C-alpha cells in the first residue's frame, strides 16, 4: 500500500504547489489545476480506503496510521466539496498543505497490524468514525477560514493593503464560509458523538464512562455549541467567531492527539504506533 500512499502524497503536494502559485501569481489556471490534481489524489485515496476496508473486513481506523489516512481523506474530501459550493479557491492554500502533512505523517507512522477486535464489526462504529472525521475536517477548514479572516481583518483595520488584502476574499464571505463549516462540522460532530455513545452502550454496557477522550470531546463540542449559540443569539460574528473557530479546533486537536499521547483512555489502541 505504501506506493499508493506515496502517489497520493505526491498529488496532494503538487496541489499544494499549485495553490501556492495561485496565491502569488493570482492566475486562475493554477487553482483550477491544483483542484484537479487534488481531486485525482482524492480518488486514489478513496480507492485505497475501500481496498483496505475489504482487505481487513472492517473500517481501517485501528491504529494511528489508519486514522491519519482517514483524517487526510476527509480533509481533502470536505475541501473539494466545499470549494465547489463556496468557490473559496484561496482556502486551498490552507487545505492542500494540511492534507499533505497529514498524509506524510501517515506515511511516516508504521501500520501496526492488530487483532481485528470484535469491537470493530459494528455499523454504529463505522458511522461514528466517518462522522467524527468528516466533522473534524470541516472544523479544521473552519479554523483555516478563521485564520484567513483574521489576516484580512488585520489588513483592513491597519490600512495596509499589501499582499493579503488583494488576494483574500471579503470579510463577509470568509465569515459566511466559516459559519458554514462550523454548522456542518458541529452537526456531524453531534451525530458522531451520539453514535459513539450508542456504540459504547453496546460494547461496554454504558453510555458514559468518564473517559478522557469522552470528556475532551464534550469540551470541544461545548466550545462549538457556545460559538453557534453566540452567533444566533447575540451575533458573535467576524473577529470573535474567527478566534473561537481557532480555539475550538485546538481543543479538537487535543482531543484527537493529546488525549491519546498524554492521557489515557479507551481510544488508546487506535493511536498505537
Amino acid at each position, binding site marked *: 500500500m505504501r506506493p499508493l500512499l506515496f502517489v497520493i502524497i505526491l498529488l496532494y503536494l503538487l496541489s499544494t504547489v499549485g495553490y501556492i502559485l495561485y496565491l502569488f501569481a493570482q492566475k486562475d489556471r493554477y487553482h483550477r489545476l491544483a483542484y484537479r490534481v487534488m481531486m485525482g489524489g482524492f480518488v486514489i485515496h478513496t480507492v485505497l480506503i475501500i481496498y483496505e476496508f475489504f482487505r481487513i473486513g472492517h473500517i481501517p481506523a485501528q491504529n494511528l496510521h489508519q486514522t491519519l489516512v482517514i483524517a487526510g481523506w476527509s480533509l481533502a474530501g470536505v475541501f473539494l466539496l466545499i470549494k465547489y459550493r463556496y468557490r473559496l479557491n484561496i482556502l486551498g492554500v490552507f487545505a492542500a498543505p494540511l492534507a499533505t502533512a497529514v498524509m506524510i505523517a501517515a506515511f511516516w507512522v508504521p501500520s501496526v497490524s492488530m487483532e481485528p477486535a470484535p469491537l470493530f464489526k459494528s455499523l454504529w462504529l463505522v458511522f461514528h468514525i466517518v462522522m467524527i472525521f468528516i466533522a473534524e475536517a470541516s472544523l479544521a477548514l473552519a479554523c483555516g477560514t478563521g485564520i484567513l479572516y483574521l489576516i*484580512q481583518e488585520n489588513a*483592513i*483595520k491597519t*490600512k495596509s*493593503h499589501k499582499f493579503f*488584502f*488583494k488576494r483574500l*476574499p*471579503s*470579510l*463577509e*464571505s470568509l465569515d*459566511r464560509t466559516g459559519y458554514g463549516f462550523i454548522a456542518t462540522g458541529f452537526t456531524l460532530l453531534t451525530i458522531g458523538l451520539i453514535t459513539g455513545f450508542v456504540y459504547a452502550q453496546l460494547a461496554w454496557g454504558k453510555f458514559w464512562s468518564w473517559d478522557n477522550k469522552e470528556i475532551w470531546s464534550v469540551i470541544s463540542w461545548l466550545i462549538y455549541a457556545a460559538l453557534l449559540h453566540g452567533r444566533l443569539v*447575540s*451575533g*458573535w*460574528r*467576524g*473577529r*470573535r467567531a474567527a478566534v473561537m473557530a481557532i480555539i475550538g479546533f485546538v481543543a479538537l486537536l487535543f482531543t484527537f492527539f493529546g488525549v491519546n499521547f498524554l492521557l489515557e483512555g479507551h481510544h488508546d489502541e487506535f493511536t498505537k504506533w
Partner: protein
Amino acid sequence: MTNLRNGNSDPSAAPDLSQIVVIGVNHRTAPVELREKLAFSPKETENALQLLQESSHINESMIVSTCNRVEVIMVTGDQVLALETISSFMAATKSISRTVLENCAYAYSGADAVAHMFRVAASLDSMMIGEPQILGQVKEAFKTAVTKKSTGLILNRLLHKTFSVAKRVRHETGIGGHAVSISYAAVELARKIFDTLDGKTVLLVGAGEMAELAVEHLMKNNSRSGILLVANRTFSAGVEMAERYHGRAIHLQEIPENLKIVDIIISSTGSPHYVITKDHVRPAMRSRKHRPLFFIDIAVPRDIDPAINRISNAYVYDIDDLQGVISENIEARNMESVKAQRIIDESVIKFTHWYESLDIVPTIKDLRNKLGTIAESELSKTVSALSHLSADDRQAFVKMTESIINKMLHDPTLFLKNPGSHRNKSVYLDFTRKLFNLDP
C-alpha cells in the same frame, strides 16, 4: 479583402514604415482650452475624413478625438505635405493660429507612430494610466473611419493589432487594477468588507460634492434594494439629495438611532467636532448583532472619531487613508506599465515585420522558397522510388522542376512589381501572402 482601396502613392515605391504618421495634441502638450477648441464632434469627424480622403497624398486616415487628445492617424506617401495639409486644415476649421498649433502638437512616424497608437489604446498615454475608456474611444473612431471608407489595408491592420495589444496589456498586466479615485477606492474597500453591496444601506452625512460622487458609485453598485439615507444640517437639501436616489432624509439627531440599520456611512460635514463617536457606535453594534459597519470619512476636520476603528467589526477610513490606498494603487499601476511597455515593444517589432514583408522582394523570395521546398520534397520521393535512374537523369529532373517554378512565377512576379497604375501594390502583396500562406 473587403477594404480594397486604391492608393495614390507611387506603386513602385517600396513599403516604408514612415508612411504611417500620427499628428496630434494631448493633455500633456496642450491646455484644456486648446483641446476643447480642437475637439471634433462626430459630424465634424466625418466631414474631416471626407476632406482628407480627397487630398491626393493621404492614402488612409482616421481621427481620434477625446477630451484629453485629438489625433489624426494617416498613411501618406509624402509626410511633409500631409502634415502641412492637416495643420492648415486644423487652423482653418478650428480657427487656431498655426504657430499655437505647431507649438503644442506632436508628430510621430514609422515605428514611433505604431508604438504611440499601441500606447494610447493600452491607456499608457492617458492622464490616469490604465483608465479603460480610451480603448472604446479608439474603437469608435476606427468604426467611423471604416464606415467613411477612409481606412485601408495598413490602418485596418494597424488598428486590429492595436486592439489586440490593448487587450493583451489589460489582460496580462495589472494596469487597470485597483482604484485610483477616492470614490472607487471607497467602493473597492466596501467590497472587501461586504462582499456584495447589494441590499446594503448607505447613510450620507452632509452632502459635499466628493461625498455625492462616492454615493453615486456605491448606489450604482447596489442596484438591488439598496437604500440611501441622507442626514444634512439643512433638512431640505437632504430631502433633495435623497430623492435623487429614491432614499429618504433624516435629521442629524437621528444618526445614532440609524446606526443600527445602516451598513456604510459616508460623512463630509463642515462640523468642527466629531459627528459620530465611539459612544454612538458601541450600543449600535450590539443591536445590529455585530454586522460590519464601514465609515468613510472624507471631511476635514474629521467627522468620525478614529477610535471607532478599534471597535470590533467597525472600520473607519478617513481621507488620508483613502489617499494612501490610492497612491499605493497608482504606484502599482506605474510598475505594471513597465510590463505593458514590453508587450508594446514586442508588438511593434511584429507589426514592422509584417509591414516589411509587404515589399515585393521578400514576398517573391518567400513564394519561391515555398514552391522550392514543395518541389524538393516531392522530387526526392519520386526519385527514391525510381532506383534505375542515373545521376544525369536525376539532374535533369531537378532542372525541370526549377524551370517549372521559374515559369510559373514569371507572371505573378511581373504583376506584383507593377499591378497597374492607381492600384495599391501593398494590397496585392498582402493578398498573395495570404493566398499562399506565407506567414503561417
